[in-house]
């Protein structure tokens, strides 16, 4: 497992760049993922998606289904892709510090 340092803070990540421990999430992590995912500027909409993902994860122990995320954020999937070019799994969940999506992906 590799570690990355951003603004003086260290994070343990896996080979796909996902945070290894959700509890280590911090604003520096968001900044790191923003650079990695090629997002120019963080908007309130990004923060809203991240917050909703984290609330859902803390409450339910899983990441929401795409339809649920759409419904909770009131963003269409197309708009989520505009915010996070890699999509809700590789982009938004990574930024929120959630575990890497599993299954036949």
């Amino acid at each position, binding site marked *: 497992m590799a570690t990355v340092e951003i603004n003086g803070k260290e994070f343990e990540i896996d080979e796909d760049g996902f945070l*290894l421990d959700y509890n280590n999430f911090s604003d520096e992590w968001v900044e790191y993922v923003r650079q990695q995912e*090629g997002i120019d500027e963080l908007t309130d909409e990004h923060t809203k998606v991240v917050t909703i993902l984290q609330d859902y994860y803390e409450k339910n*122990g*899983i990441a929401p289904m795409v339809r649920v995320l759409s419904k909770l954020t009131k963003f269409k999937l197309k708009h989520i892709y505009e915010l996070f070019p890699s999509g809700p799994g590789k982009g938004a969940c990574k930024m929120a510090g959630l*575990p890497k999506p*599993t299954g*036949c992906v």
Partner: protein
Amino acid sequence: MAFISSGYNPDKPMEDRITDIGPRKYDEFYPSVIAKNKGKWSHHEILEAGVIVHVAESGDEVYTVRVGGCRLMTTTHLEEICQIADKHCDGHVRFTTRNNVEFMVDSKDKVEPLKNDLASRIFSGGSQKFPIGGTGAGITNIVHTQGWIHCHTPATDASGTVKATMDEVFEDFQSMRLPAKLRISMACCLNMCGAVHCSDIAILGYHRKPPMLDHEYLDKICEIPLAIKACPTAAIRPAKTKLADGTEVKTVAVKNERCMFCGNCYTMCPSMPLADTEGDGIVLMAGGKVSNRISHPKFSKVVVAFIPNDMPRWPSMTDAIKKMINAYSNGANKYERLGDWAERIGWEKFFEVCELDFSHHLIDDFRQQAYMSWRQSTQFKF
């Protein structure tokens, strides 16, 4: 090698990005004789194993030479396929749904040179690069999966078992002596990617040990509810445990006597690996088909509960497959698929003539419909 840019700018990933263009349209690649006669074919004939002629209403003919492909191919090999296509077929070639390669020519006198060229090409190890065959009532290519080449959940290897099996049944690839076509498929775990659940003979990777639990990381890298829900027998429940250093972590507990080693939980949760050198092996299934010819499509049924992984040639697996094919070719009527034959003679006779052992593992015990697979009749043969 030093980095060579394709023109993509990582600082502006969305700039000049082309997306949603789909695959190239199929008719861009038609040989002229196919494009001309599309939808106007009159009949076809298998001239010999691996060579088919289609005759159009206009009288045009197209000769197809089908050759075996190993599916996992290098670009060097693909380049050689292209060279052959350039030399004999005006640059056209196609791949079949079982990953064979088909070269098409538009007149009979082009067939012999093409066949001779194909037959002359041999790997330095001695294997044929382009063996001609795979048509009619024989054994064509084996639909298979990734195995130890690339996948993380396999219980056996795909390319290795397939090469071992095709070597054993190679004569049937190049001949058409069987009662009907016999499809062999391979999947390296019971995700069953491909066609194992509906093939005449199927090779399936199988585990025999429950998952190991990596408590320290489980809650960090898994979504625990997904791992619980992945289990078809509800053997997994949420739990808490104390690590060696005294911290209490969320994790799962597995009831081993309910676990049947499907590996679904590992698919969802990387902290539950279950691959094991001695535990893993192969299950053989038989009697499936997808066509509607005469009888309805069938699922294949488990006929050999376990064969150990015996790298690199899997002799006991190829031996069991050979026994089934021989018994089938001796016993079945013309046009009878392996499943039709087994159902006609009765599965008790199938096990007798194939000299396969019947064990309690083969009796269905999964949920309510298992009952339907038991014999509720006095009709059986001693």
